[in-house]
């Protein structure tokens, strides 16, 4: 069965929300950076593109992304998806993460200026 971009995004979103911790850093700006970097690197790995790992921060984002992609091998439909669809799906995934956990979040601590 072919997976639509929307359904694929929902499946990956559920997976992240159930199994990962990196999307829950306590401040909105921090969550934005985590989502951008980890989803960005996961997209590059899925599309077999070069991934930057030069700084310690980059290596950390990459390790999270690589582990995520390794775990997503349980989704056979993802292996069959072409790069354009992967990019579109991962873009929507990041939007959903940002929406649920930052812009539309009910967590009142996200805007605290201090850690």
């Amino acid at each position, binding site marked *: 069965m072919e997976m639509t971009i929307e359904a694929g995004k929902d499946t990956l979103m559920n997976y992240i*929300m*159930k*199994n990962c*911790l*990196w999307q*829950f*850093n*306590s401040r909105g700006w*921090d969550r934005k950076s985590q989502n951008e970097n980890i989803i960005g690197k996961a997209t590059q790995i899925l599309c077999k593109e070069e991934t930057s*790992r030069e*700084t*310690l*921060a980059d*290596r*950390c984002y*990459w*390790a*999270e992304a*690589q*582990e995520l992609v*390794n*775990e997503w091998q349980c989704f056979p439909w993802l292996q069959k998806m072409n790069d354009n669809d992967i990019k579109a799906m991962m873009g929507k995934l990041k939007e959903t993460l940002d*929406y*649920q*956990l930052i812009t*539309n*979040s*009910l*967590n*009142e*601590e996200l805007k605290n200026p201090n*850690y």
Partner: protein
Amino acid sequence: MPYHEFECSKCIPERIKHAVDKGKDENLSDALPLGYLNTIPGTLSERGCAYCGAKHVIGTPMKDVIHLSHGPIGCTYDTWQTKRYISDNDNFQIKYTFASDMKEKHIVFGAEKVLKNNILEAFKAFPKIKRMTIYQTCASALIGDDIKAISQEVMDEMPDVDIFVCNSPGFAGPSQSGGHHKINIAWVNDKVGQVEPTITSDFVINYVGEYNIQGDQQIMQDYFKRMGIQILSTFTGNGSYDDLRAMHRAKLNVLECARSAEYICDELRKRYGIPRMDIDGFGFKSLSGSLRKIGLFFGIEDRAEAIIEEETKRWKPELDWYAARLKGKKICLWPGGSKLWHWAHVIHEEMGLEVVSVYTKFGHQGDMEKGVSRCEVGALAIDDPNELECIEAMYKLKPDVIVTGKRPGEVAKKIRVPYVNVHAYNNGPYKGFEGWVRLARDLYNAIYSPIHQLAFVDISKDEIETDKGFMTRQMFSDTQLDESIVNSKEMHEYTGEFDSLKRLRDREYPQYPMKGKQAAV
């Protein structure tokens, strides 16, 4: 996810936004319990204070330190009868507890002199211990004693000692979580960067937010050492004072309890560029994923994989034995803070338990986001519940077991709900592969203990069956099981030792030569 109204809290309308039922097809932007707010007048909160959060949770697990409370002696109540953060130096930090023993006269005339005498006396009594932490309490904060000045005086007089002062009196926050924050920031401001460590590996971490409850830290330390990773410091379970002054030299902060220690990770990230990686040390799947991503970070994922394979092969058949007998049992996941999200999904997936409620006493909304995301639909999520709400929830949800601390645990026992102590543990450690089996065993023993069957008999009206005087756990648990499970040759009960740390003490670890500069991944 509609908010949940407790019958018993109808007279406290503000409470309604502190509890949520997880609904189908809803997400965190539909409803989220409030959290980390001042306790509502009229509700009998079971939280700890900010002093407790700083000293008893985070400060005192440091092992080679005299921990002194500048306040009334009652503030030192929590020692080894309530806390079980053991250490590999014969548990010095929980065997001895120190207080300046402030009394009314000190409130009137000041207690700086008595504090100095106490510091000198403590160092004299334990001449091998050269490090001390001093904790402000409500009493010493209100009279304004200058603890830092006194400490400096002592350090000037005794150059071989070092003292850390934590100003986190009990009233300095809504709960113990306020104290976590204060001691994190005080430590990074006052102590980190003062010691240059000896680096022995290309792979160097700080292990943060781990308090070595019954040996959890030592279990994880074993995995890290087998991977050739140097743990520069542990913040703070089984941690050494001077190692924690050298946190700035790590390549990665591996964070377990984000609620209590993310602050220091975030500061180390900002000040020293050390990234933060949040992990789960509980559950086969989550722990495996955590070891893998640490391995990936350092380019040693093969070493992580070898440990996962070995440990899973050894312990999975034992976990499966308990999982077969725990399947479908209802559990309330009511720990203090982080275990509600560390366990919410894996305890369901790997032990088959149905999580009917999660709560946190001092967690923030971020903890609830994680817990609600990970638990199943229908679960009741509660922030800072009072005792009546807990009782109402237990009567309504009818859990087979609750996992919590000893105060709410004793309440549960009174209404005949078995509980497992997940603050100090029953028979921990619970971290690691073997530890997860030990938790499964404790849950099994709690649920199927014959004592609970006897407790349900009301001797004032029930007939007592005199021909059934002997039952075992297995006689209860195996009646509904398929024969293939009961007679399985693969699955079996826990076969580890009483002290699961024993075999780690003399273990020899592989030596990996350093390549100098950290190799690129």
